[in-house]
């Protein structure tokens, strides 16, 4: 197809997204879309549409998130071997906390259970697997299983009250659970002789590699795999069947129940799945650090973790990861700042919560909502009923004929308004039917041609011959006309004139 633009003439991009990157579609080739092996899922969400302006078929990526994910995670992976030892530790901690936060997001966002016992579950998984490893010599691959089982049990215990309690009640209650765990672990003298902590945990990092370069690299690789697994879990749970069910239930629980969605059961399942995941993360935590201390249950640690998902945005995986990156960078990366770090984190948390509705990842949506609201308010203020089409409205209307008709109609009405004078009204009052002056004929012609919706009509009252009321048509077949007012006219000419006045009123006000 040739470009029809005239050279030298300035063209302006219009429309909502003129900068959108689109690919051309070769109409001759058959459409072929790659699927993920053994599933019916596509890797990327391609969408084709006909561009009404260029009349060309074009293809665009409807969801660009996978690209950003690949880019960010790929960068992290590629840059890891070049990082210093301390930066490598920070990266590994980031991956680990991200995994925890992604699984937590599953609980808060997808399941909609406002649980603050995440670290308690992680800690229980870590303690169970570490104790089994140290005292019973459980090999490290099985530690993950043990951690997962411990997390599952802990999750099941926590899930019980969540069915009964309201959101905030449950959140506050679970805050206490971590405290219970801390005290409980410190009381278990035979298991935790060192003031509540278990040391010398053998993990996937060989003992003689510990704190060496290869050990750090291996640790980072493990944490990275953990993060990938957590993201995969998030993807599978959140955007497949369970997530869909819960998304329906989130808006209106009673409605979801009425159409047969057992949202409580789905919530429990999500809760249990992510609890098991958190337990596995706990086992990893114990292996990575080679020890586990009651510090994991402390309120401060929980608050820092909560700050991460809050800054990123509750309920989104990318929010959890971005928030974690920011806070871990400040908390572990800027060690020179001392106590200022936590102040900085608190300040960011404060600023983000006060200004955004849902964290950093929600900014885009919030801004769009704000812009849409402003646009529509401004449009609503300017648009007269039945008036001319505003430019920004015009790009939303596909049928360009309608735009021209409304413009024509507006001009016609402006002209007719000038014709309405007391003389014309008096003329109609005198003689509603019959030969009229030019101005009145024009007016009446315009009224006759009006749309059926809201058109006025005279209805004769049943049983009484000379008794009329004015109605307005609904414009919908089958829907009865509505009564304009209760006034009864005993003279048909009077009724004609009343209808005329109503129409003139409408014309003058439009």
């Amino acid at each position, binding site marked *: 197809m040739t470009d029809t633009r005239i050279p030298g003439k300035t063209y302006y991009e219009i429309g909502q997204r003129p900068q959108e990157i689109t690919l051309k579609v070769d109409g001759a080739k058959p459409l072929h879309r790659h699927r993920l092996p053994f599933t019916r899922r596509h890797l990327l969400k391609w969408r084709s549409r006909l561009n009404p302006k260029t009349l060309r078929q074009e293809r665009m990526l409807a969801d660009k998130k996978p690209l950003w994910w690949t880019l960010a995670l790929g960068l992290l992976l590629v840059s890891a071997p070049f990082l210093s030892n301390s930066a490598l530790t920070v990266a590994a901690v980031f991956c680990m906390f991200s995994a925890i936060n992604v699984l937590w997001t599953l609980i808060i966002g997808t399941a909609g259970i406002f649980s603050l016992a995440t670290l308690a579950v992680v800690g229980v998984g870590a303690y169970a697997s570490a104790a089994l490893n140290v005292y019973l010599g459980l090999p490290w691959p099985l530690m993950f299983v043990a951690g997962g089982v411990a997390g599952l049990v802990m999750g099941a215990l926590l899930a019980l009250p969540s069915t009964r309690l309201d959101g905030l009640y449950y959140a506050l209650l679970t805050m206490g659970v971590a405290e219970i765990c801390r005290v409980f672990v410190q009381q278990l003298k035979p298991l935790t002789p060192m003031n509540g902590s278990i040391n010398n945990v053998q993990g996937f990092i060989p003992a003689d590699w510990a704190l060496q370069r290869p050990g750090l690299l291996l640790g980072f690789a493990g944490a990275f795999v953990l993060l990938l697994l957590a993201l995969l879990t998030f993807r599978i749970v959140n955007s497949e069947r369970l997530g869909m069910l819960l998304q329906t239930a989130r808006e209106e629980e009673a409605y979801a129940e009425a159409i047969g969605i057992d949202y409580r059961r789905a919530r429990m399942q999500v809760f249990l799945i992510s609890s098991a995941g958190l337990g596995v993360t706990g086992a990893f935590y114990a292996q990575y650090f080679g020890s586990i201390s009651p510090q994991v249950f402390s309120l401060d640690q929980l608050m820092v973790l909560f700050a991460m998902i809050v800054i990123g945005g509750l309920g989104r995986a990318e929010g959890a990861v971005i928030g974690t990156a920011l806070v871990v960078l400040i908390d572990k990366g800027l060690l020179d700042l001392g106590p200022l770090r936590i102040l900085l984190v608190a300040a960011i948390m404060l600023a983000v919560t006060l200004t955004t509705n849902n964290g950093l990842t929600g900014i885009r949506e919030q801004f769009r909502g704000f812009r849409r609201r402003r646009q529509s308010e401004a449009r*609503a203020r300017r648009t007269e*009923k039945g008036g001319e089409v505003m430019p920004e409205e015009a790009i939303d209307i596909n049928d360009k004929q309608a735009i021209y008709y409304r413009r024509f109609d507006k001009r016609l009405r402006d002209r007719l308004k000038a014709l309405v004078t007391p003389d014309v009204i008096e003329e109609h009052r005198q003689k509603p039917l019959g030969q009229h002056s030019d101005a009145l004929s024009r007016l009446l012609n315009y009224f006759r041609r009006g749309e059926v919706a809201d058109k006025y009509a005279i209805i004769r009252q049943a049983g009484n011959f000379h008794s009329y009321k004015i109605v307005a048509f609904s414009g919908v077949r089958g829907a009865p006309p509505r009564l304009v007012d209760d006034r009864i006219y005993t003279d048909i000419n009077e009724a004609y004139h009343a209808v005329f006045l109503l129409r003139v009123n409408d014309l003058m006000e439009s």
Partner: protein
Amino acid sequence: MVDVLKIEGLTAGYGPLRVLHDISFKVAEGERVGLVGLNGHGKTTLFRAVSSQVGWQSGSILLMGNEVGGTRSTGPGRRTPAIVRAGLAMAPQGDAIFPGLTVAQHLDCGAYTPEAWRERKRRREMVFDIFPPLRKLEHALVGRLSGGERRMVSVGRALMVEARLYLIDEPSLGLAPKISASVIEALFSLPKDGRAMVIAEQNVALLSGRVDRMVGMHAGRLRGDVGHVSLH
């Protein structure tokens, strides 16, 4: 005579929806105005715009000569208490009531000026005189009352202070005809001295003959006096 309420060029709506179109409206002292119109044509929105509770609004609203309108697009309800204190009493559609308070406490809530608060007992008695069924329910929880009694409490709350302008929204909505008639009856038994009242009502028959003037509302515009269709 002073205009208690003088609205000029009021446009208001919620989000993209424009409900009121350039309304101009005046209520003089001592006047009782009926605002009639079908559901969804903007009667309630007009009241809410006067009390600054709609999504956005622009145009001038003079309450006793004080500007309470203006252009505003955020924070519905933020200026409402100040407007109420400037002399507006509004009984909203449905029941804006406090289910956990007793009838007496509920009425006390309406007494927001220090004088009214000091003599709240006397004023409660006055309300009980207007709505006799409430007297024996003085210490009952509002949440346990019947629909009609709640409406009486809701309207009674608006009567606890000497407001200059009363906006009563749909006093008959959802009530049995007999009860709604008695509520309306009680409203009209109030003394006229210096106060003005606007009653929004779908049931024209309840108001006809009792109000000084009836204004129709249609599709967000005022329609002059019903029954006298004219060019303004």
